């Protein structure tokens, strides 16, 4: 568990067309956006939020060439040094025959490596829990969490979000990191304020 408990003003938007200018205005006003949670991937939102380009593809490339080298060194060692076999009269170092396996291992390493890296970056794992700012963020609501620093005036942020078109605004004290355990003990917010969640 990392991060500690922080205070957030959470604004919920119904439409990405409202969300985009809101993100822009919130950033321009100098508020610190903790994150924006959307029900589906929204093109260009990372750019609007000013997030840096992900390095996931660089990692993928490195995993890929690792797969290529693993396959080539492994197969060439087996077939030329460890256990040379005469297969159809082909040379022991039969590169064309190895290309499919090399390709498969490249793809496998890149795919599995990238999935695991992605999970690590997003702190996703079985049994690991993270605070949900709004349960409808996985359904039909765009949820923007603004972190309150000591300089932030809560009422002002709330008014600002209201003007920006948020349909629902609340303040939450939330754990920013992950924990292993259960939601019901930590996350009381929706149980109290909204029936049905």
């Amino acid at each position, binding site marked *: 568990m990392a991060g500690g408990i922080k205070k957030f003003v959470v604004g919920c938007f119904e439409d990405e067309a409202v969300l985009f200018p809101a993100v822009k205005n919130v950033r321009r006003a100098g508020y610190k956006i903790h994150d924006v949670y959307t029900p589906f991937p929204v093109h*260009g939102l990372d750019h609007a939020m000013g997030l840096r380009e992900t390095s996931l593809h660089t990692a993928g490339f490195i995993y890929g060439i690792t797969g290529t080298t693993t396959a080539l060194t492994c197969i060439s060692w087996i077939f030329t040094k460890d256990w040379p076999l005469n297969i159809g009269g*082909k040379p022991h170092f039969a590169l*064309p*025959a190895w290309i*499919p396996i090399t390709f498969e291992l490249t793809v496998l390493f890149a795919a599995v490596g990238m999935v695991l890296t992605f999970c690590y970056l997003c702190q996703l794992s079985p049994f690991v829990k993270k605070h949900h700012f709004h349960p409808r963020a996985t359904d039909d609501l765009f949820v923007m969490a603004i972190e309150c620093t000591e300089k932030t005036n809560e009422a002002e942020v709330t008014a600002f979000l209201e003007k920006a078109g948020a349909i629902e605004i609340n303040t939450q004290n939330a754990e920013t990191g992950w924990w292993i355990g259960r939601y019901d003990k930590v996350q009381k917010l929706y149980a109290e304020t909204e029936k049905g969640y």
Partner: protein
Amino acid sequence: MSKSFELPENYNKWTKGLIGAGLIALLYGFIAFHPFEHAGHGENVNSTRFWAVLLQNSVFFLLITNASMFFIGVTTLAMGGWQVALKRVPEAISSVVPVLGIITLVILLSIVWGGRTDIFHWIDPELYNPASPKFDKILNGKKGFLNPVFFTVWSILTVFLWWFIGQKMRSFSLQSDANGPMDYETGKKWINKNILWASLFIVFFGLSVGSTIPWLWIMSIDAHWYSTMFSWYTFASSFVAGMSLIAIYIVFLKNKGQLEYVTDEHLHDIGKFMFAFSVFWTYLWFSQYMLIWYANIPEETGYFKIRLTGPFSGIFFLNLVINFLSPLLIFMKKSAKRNWTLVTIMAVLIIFGHWIDFWQMVMPGTVANHAALMPFEFGIAALFVGIIMWRVGVFLSSHPMTAKNHPFLKESIIHHT
């Protein structure tokens, strides 16, 4: 954007220069290579070289211009919206098909009916005469497909249908300019009409470029050999070069202040096509090679033996470096596909690479050890490039650059990858 685009002075100069250089090369070929002297295989090499070079260039450039119409066809069928802002470019390039088609037909039919057995071994009638010592059992078995009459009829029909359906598709697009904005019902009808003709084109494209045409025009040079992958391989080669040609024209027009709605995003998608189909080409190249290498059957390996050993081996591997390694490594990054200079360089490199690819498909089976990459070869290529530039220029300068009434235009303007 209603006023038409005026071609820059330099463009016209280059067009004339390339066509001029090409005509000089052609004239030189007529005088120096005695193209009308009859010759068997390997007897009058210069005359063989003349026809082989013409065959390679005409088929290559015809296929890459026709790939533009294939691009329009597939994006139409996929209900694509992103390409609308740049749709006039492939339309302009595909308008070269009738001109190059007729040139190609003239060359092919001269080879077939001129009895040039040095190019197409299978046209020798003696091969099918059981009494003759030249009787060829294998080619006799292929007689139903590989005969001059079918070759002629099918080639003419193919070029005609490419032209005819392509012309239809272009005319729908141009009509939409004149007819003004479309409401929902009209737009729907118009899209459906496009889809109908695009699907006719794609089906026929599958029957021609996807299968029979490369068999007839190129693979029949090595008439005993066959590969069921050959047509796909040729298609991939021509499609990736065709996308590169589209990319070059987009960069050129954007530099001249045209194509107002085309942005980095569109170029990125074109770059993705160039990248992806380079890899697809390699996949087919390798699949064809590996199966033959593994099975090791003499009548199949002959095709690669002549390419891997002797004078062609350098070109054979250069082909892989230019068409696979360089796009793979240079084009892998997102920023590379959004860099207009780099895309231009890669597009030229890929077109050259696939021209080389076609060169090594045609030359070993025709001129063999006497193959050359001399001014004559490049001169003939310049002739075809010049013709493409001329016809594309005519189309671009006489029609609006943006299909402004296309129902999906907005989708293209806000396109974001």
